């Protein structure tokens, strides 16, 4: 059986349990589910187009030379910069990361990309500044970038 089918079955069982416990809440959950799907799917399709563009125009050799194992620390750094400026919703990060990995990017580079894409966002900076101030925002984003670098190096060692 496909993994997706299994997840879908688990999700439906949880939904059924939820509706037995509280019908009103489950209705809200169904609504939320539709809303999430509606927000996420178009972004995903856009990311799939990006993947298609890379497939069509960027050769595997280029990806390997920028983000591959031999690119070492610099590759991780590039991946982190890409992740920091990428305007991705979290669900789009993994398909894109997986796609880069299939095309020669190292696990370390992917880890750098995934962490920064989720935790650092150019689009969320204004909100973070407004809610938490300059010092917090600057320190959090810089520390996230730095710690991600260390973790990405270790993950590269462990996984490959």
């Amino acid at each position, binding site marked *: 059986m496909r993994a997706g089918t299994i997840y879908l079955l688990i999700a439906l069982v949880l939904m059924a349990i939820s509706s037995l416990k509280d019908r009103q809440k489950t209705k809200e959950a169904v609504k939320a589910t*539709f809303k999430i799907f509606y927000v996420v799917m178009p972004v995903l399709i856009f990311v799939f187009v990006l993947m298609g563009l890379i497939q069509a125009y960027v050769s595997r050799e280029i990806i390997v030379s920028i983000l591959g194992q031999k690119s070492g620390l610099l590759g991780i750094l590039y991946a982190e910069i890409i992740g920091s400026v990428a305007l991705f919703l979290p669900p789009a990060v993994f398909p894109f990361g997986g796609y880069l990995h299939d095309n020669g990017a190292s696990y370390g580079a992917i880890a750098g990309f995934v962490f920064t894409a989720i935790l650092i966002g150019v689009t969320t900076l204004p909100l973070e500044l407004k809610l938490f101030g300059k010092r917090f925002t600057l320190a*959090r984003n810089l520390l996230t970038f730095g710690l991600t670098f260390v*973790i990405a190096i270790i993950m590269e060692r462990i996984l490959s």
Partner: protein
Amino acid sequence: MKKILKNDAFWFLFISVVITLVVYGLNTAKGAIVAKTVYATFFEVLDIIVAVSIFIGLFQVWVKPQTIVKLLGKGSGLKGFVLVCTFPILMGGSLFTIFPLLKALKEKGARIGAIASFITAWGGKAPLLPLESKFLGWPFALVRIGFVIIFAFVMGFLMDWVGDKTAQIKKEKSFLVEL
């Protein structure tokens, strides 16, 4: 019409179609590659995305933000810190949805280290595990989530240290003013 133009979903789809058509117009073979990639990946992930949306939808309804604030606001100390570094891994959403929640935590007196730990742990993204394992494999996904916990702990310590420094500088400054 105005409503449609303000709709992000519409724009993402619109731009996607335009890019594909332009590429197809410039070079039929390359356009076909783009279209094929989109088509194949779409059907590869459709069931997973539906399942993930259901997981996040259920979580949102059954675990209200107020509950989270209460849960995390209660235990400062070690227990609260451990919670802050692990519990957010289960949550969905984007930074846009969790920042307001964290503002509430801060107003309840949470330390900035706890806030930073929360954000980092939230990056664990357990609801997206089906997607992550599908594209990057279980070893990557599990190792990454393990590191998220360590990441969140270290982040908390470092941010508290940064925060303490600020407090100290402020103290010194106010001392100068008093003089």
